């Protein structure tokens, strides 16, 4: 029952983005050009989210203004690199590869008991550090590739893959990113494979999270977009334990979605009563 209900909701989510591409393309063009930049840069992992960002960015800015970086670690899957290369070939983009193995291994050579999580986070931050450095070289704004499912579940590394200047896919659930990938004719191999942060060999997001993206998207949609209570979501056929787990993740990771909390001592404090839109500075 849970599966059927989740799939029904996901179909509805997919349908709802039928008209989203022009909005996302307009967003990228408008919010980038008004900063005085013409170029975008981001990490291209071979996964569906960054592939969609690549296609959107090319539509918004033209291929000469889009700089995806491929940044594998020595244990990264070769298939992911191949998928990323397929995106470049399809869009006529030049390959820019940075192997992060030397700096990551140098650091962990004196951090012997580092967990998978620490290593994964370090790699994500290493990649973002490179993106921001290269953004100066290419005079490009870094684009985020985290979708709404990841942002709500906190499935990402703070100041790593969660960092960006602009994020065109942050209000799209994973299911909706897949639907848009279809609209944009992202290569089939990328659309069909199991999502993976590629943090270690054979890792998949769904194994690590302990639930499927369809279940997560359906529950998140009901809790967040539809403002249902946990009890109401359970009454729709979802397991109480799973709903509880999703809700706990949303709350637990709220800090990742906010700027750092500042101790208020003055009459005008940044983020509290010094309130300006980002576009003020443009």
């Amino acid at each position, binding site marked *: 029952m849970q599966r059927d209900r989740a799939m029904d909701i996901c179909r509805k989510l997919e349908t709802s983005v039928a*008209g989203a591409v022009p909005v996302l393309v307009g*967003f990228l063009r408008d919010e980038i050009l008004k900063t005085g930049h013409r170029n975008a840069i981001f990490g291209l992992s071979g996964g569906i989210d960054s592939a969609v960002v690549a296609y959107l960015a090319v539509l918004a800015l033209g291929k000469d203004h889009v700089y995806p970086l491929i940044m594998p670690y020595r244990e990264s899957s070769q298939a992911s690199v191949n998928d990323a290369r397929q995106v470049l070939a399809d869009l006529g983009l030049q390959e820019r590869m940075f192997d992060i193995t030397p700096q990551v291994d140098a650091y962990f050579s004196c951090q012997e008991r580092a967990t998978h999580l620490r290593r994964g986070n370090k790699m994500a931050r290493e990649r973002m550090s490179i993106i921001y450095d290269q953004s100066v070289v290419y005079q490009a704004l870094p684009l985020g590739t985290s979708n709404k499912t990841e942002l709500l579940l906190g499935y990402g590394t703070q100041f790593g893959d969660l960092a960006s200047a602009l994020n065109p896919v942050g209000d799209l659930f994973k299911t909706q990113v897949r639907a848009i990938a279809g609209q944009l004719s992202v290569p089939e191999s990328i659309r069909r494979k199991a999502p993976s942060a590629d943090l270690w060999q054979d890792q998949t997001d769904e194994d690590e999270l302990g639930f499927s993206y369809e279940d997560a998207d359906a529950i998140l949609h009901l809790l967040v977009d539809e403002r249902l209570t946990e009890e109401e979501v359970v009454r729709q056929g979802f397991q109480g334990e799973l709903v509880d787990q999703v809700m706990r993740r949303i709350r637990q990771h709220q800090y990742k979605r906010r700027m750092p909390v500042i101790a208020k001592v003055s009459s005008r404090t940044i983020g509290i009563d010094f309130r300006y839109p980002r*576009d003020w500075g*443009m």
Partner: protein
Amino acid sequence: MKSIRVALGQVQPVLGDVYANADKHMAFIDRAVEQGADVVVFPELGLTGYLLRDLTYQVARRIDDPDIEKLIGASQRIDVLFSFVEESAAHRFYTCSVYASGGRVIHVHRKIYLPTYGLFEEGRHFSRGESLNSFAVAEYRAGIAICEDVWHPSVPYLLSVAGMDVLYVPAAGPGRALGGDPHSGSQLFWERLIRTYAQLFTCYVVFVNRVGFEDGVFFFGHSAIAGPDGEMVGKVESHDERLEIFSLDLASIRKERYRTPLLRDEDVHFTQRTLARLVEGQ
């Protein structure tokens, strides 16, 4: 009665830059004059941008400010309806729209309903307008209601009682709630709204919505005019800046009010008595 040629000035304001926006307004006015329009209508806060927050304090202008007088002066060539943050002598801040004609102000409308929910925070920065009336323009009577004002049916109703052949609705309508349709839920609602009001009040409704993005919020444009029979007179089929001119045949108001005499039959005394009793009962 004759027809009037209305130019829909669907602009993309620069957030917080009154001078740049005033220049753009002047350029649109020039084009509207060249194309033989009788009036050019600009969207809500076209002179300042919408998502102002603390910028409200900086962009506010008195109605006798030289920046504002310049636009009023331009109405010697063509009637101009424009919108900005008005600061009163008592230093209250209003979202206002001015109808200027023959180089002078004919009417000022201060926005009454300030949305302060969801993505909106107008009540935090603006004072609420406290009066409402229609006004005479050449051979017809007009009313102005700014954006959220018309989400309250009492506003067009009161204007209709005051006498209204054309309802001008300057708006900063964000696109949200995507559905299966290529247009957002909010955009579809707006079209239904203006058609319904046009038919019920047997008048023209001129909806002018801004375009562009501010901090990721998308303003969908698609300015439009509905006629007294509830049918669309014309629509700007675009999310981009446009100046488009449509003719309003004022004779069709006469025909429609004879065919469907809703205004003749409207019993304002009944409304007044019942409203007084209901409000007292609360």
